């Protein structure tokens, strides 16, 4: 009987070896597909993007800095708008998110910290179209009423513009920055807290002088990824920013509407104009160039965030 079962065992072992190899190759292929997808996106979008310079012969100087060619609007409005939106959005979001992160890790009783963390994570799930519609329904009228009652001029502002957009995107990136910061702060060893408190520091001094520096690189990672999310946010921004060809800051200073004037950003312009450019031509190409710029910026921000994470001491 033993002589019968032996070859059987051998075939079982061979077939499991074959399966093992097949599985190994299979998962490697799936990993490669993911890399291939990203490479394809870069090549495809890139191939369209450079037509602006190679086929339409528009010089990069004209593309980025001239005010006169894209619907007499120039990409300067859009790049300045995107950068300003990131800065303003982060100015609101960062103190909020980092404060909440410290509250969750240092102040709140564990049950409250858990609830708050869940709420913050649920925020992450709210679709951007909902944020956009809420911006239209709540934030714009709110800004309009407050500013107009301060200035005493009923028609001073309509409420839409970069300030409304910054407010909305701040809430959208809050969960990203908060959760990454919470993880960074929680990774700090207890000895650091205890040492600081034992030296007589108050809890606030401990947070500000020990924990914040120790978790700074982790928090920075969150902030950089938040910036990537703001610069790529489309629908929520498109609904509230107004989409007007005014350069943020420069044109608004003239009209005395800094922070509340309408402007436009890269995503909004692509979103609104792409569907009207089915025939192709320089304007479609320029939208592809802007898209490639967006893609490159997010890749660059990811690269920076990885470099910052690699430098952090506590992980």
């Amino acid at each position, binding site marked *: 009987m033993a002589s019968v079962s032996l070859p059987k065992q051998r075939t079982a072992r061979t077939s499991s070896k074959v399966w093992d190899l097949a599985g190994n190759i299979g998962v490697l*292929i799936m990993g490669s597909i993911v890399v291939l*997808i990203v490479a394809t996106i870069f090549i495809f979008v890139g191939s369209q993007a450079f037509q602006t310079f190679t086929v339409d012969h528009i010089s990069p100087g004209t593309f980025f800095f001239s005010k006169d060619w894209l619907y007499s609007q120039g990409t300067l409005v859009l790049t300045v708008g995107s950068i300003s939106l990131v800065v303003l959005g982060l100015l609101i979001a960062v103190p909020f998110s980092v404060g909440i992160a410290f509250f969750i890790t240092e102040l709140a009783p564990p049950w409250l910290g858990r609830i708050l963390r869940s709420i913050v994570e649920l*925020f992450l*799930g709210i679709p951007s*179209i909902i944020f956009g519609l809420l911006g239209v329904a709540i934030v714009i009228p709110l800004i309009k009423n407050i500013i107009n009652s301060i200035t005493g001029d009923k028609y001073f502002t309509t409420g839409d513009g970069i300030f409304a957009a910054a407010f909305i995107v701040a809430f959208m990136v809050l969960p990203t920055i908060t959760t990454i910061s919470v993880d960074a702060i929680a990774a700090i060893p207890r000895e650091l807290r205890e040492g600081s408190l034992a030296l007589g520091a108050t809890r606030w001094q401990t947070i500000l002088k020990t924990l914040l520096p120790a978790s700074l690189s982790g928090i920075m990672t969150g902030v950089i990824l938040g910036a990537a999310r703001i610069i*790529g946010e*489309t629908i929520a921004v498109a609904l509230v920013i107004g989409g007007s060809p005014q350069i943020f800051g420069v044109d608004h200073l003239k009209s005395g509407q800094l922070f509340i004037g309408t402007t436009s950003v890269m995503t909004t312009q692509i979103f609104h104009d792409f569907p009207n450019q089915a025939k192709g031509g320089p304007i479609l190409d320029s939208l592809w160039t802007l898209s490639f710029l*967006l893609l490159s910026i997010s890749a660059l921000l990811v690269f920076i965030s990885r470099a910052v994470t690699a430098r952090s001491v506590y992980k």
Partner: protein
Amino acid sequence: MSASSIATIKTIEARAKIAANRRARARIYDRIATGTLWGLAGIITIVFLYIVTYIISKGLPFISRDFFTSGNPAVGIAAQLFNTFYLLILSLLIMIPVGLGAAIYTSEYARNQRFLRVLRFAVETLTSAPSLLIGLFGFLFFVANIKIFSVGPITVHGMGLQFSRISGALALAVLNVPWLLRTSEDALRAVPGSLREASLAAGATKWQTTFRVVIPAAIPGLVTSILITSGRVIGETAALIFTAGAGGSVKDAFNFGLDRPGETLAYHAYSLYSEPSTNSEGLRAGTSLVLIVLVLVINIGARVLGSFLNNRFAGRRA
């Protein structure tokens, strides 16, 4: 007592006073900061509750039986509901083999550190790439059939799938596969190494260990990861505008044609805003309500189910 020792005592007293002042000030700052942090936590909770109650109270008056069952876009959202779930299932069917396979690779198999670094960078870039951009890529690659570029004799064309459910599902899969990969990788990594070692020591191959030990043990985490990814898929708008297209007509409400356009709830909420008609405000409020309830139920469900399954599988109580 000499004059110098009196002076020393005076400086000591003065220093003690300064130190006491400083301590008192630090305590006040501590109180202010504590209050501020409690305030911030309060604000975020209130904002969240306000958003949810606002959407519910605005949408509830427009919820009726007809709203769910009518395929007529002027009355109900049956077609959009159907499309939302149809596109979700289609995109998961595309995403799960790739995302889970790649996650198994990164957590169980990966030895080549260079390739792993490239893969991680690719995943993170795709995670933070704007959804608008994935929509445009989807339009170029899946929807249109124009020439994209040519290198020597090779010319690359788009697939020409038109504005259709399959284009939309492919774009959703590209957009969300990195999320699925990262969350399921976390789930696989959470499985203790001792289980793998025991299985390998018992003579199982790597593949047997992965499929019969690691994946079953990671099921709770994998379910959570698929649900969280589903929540993101359901809420996506920008990518679908350029791929799945508009059109939630009565005719398309319940046919499974992959080549038909598929307007989802999120896109419907947008198009009701951008192309308003007589009763679009009510429809929009109702659609927003259904959308946010779906997303919240899926996300809360993911956490509850995850911890429930975890307790069942691990045989312990939370």
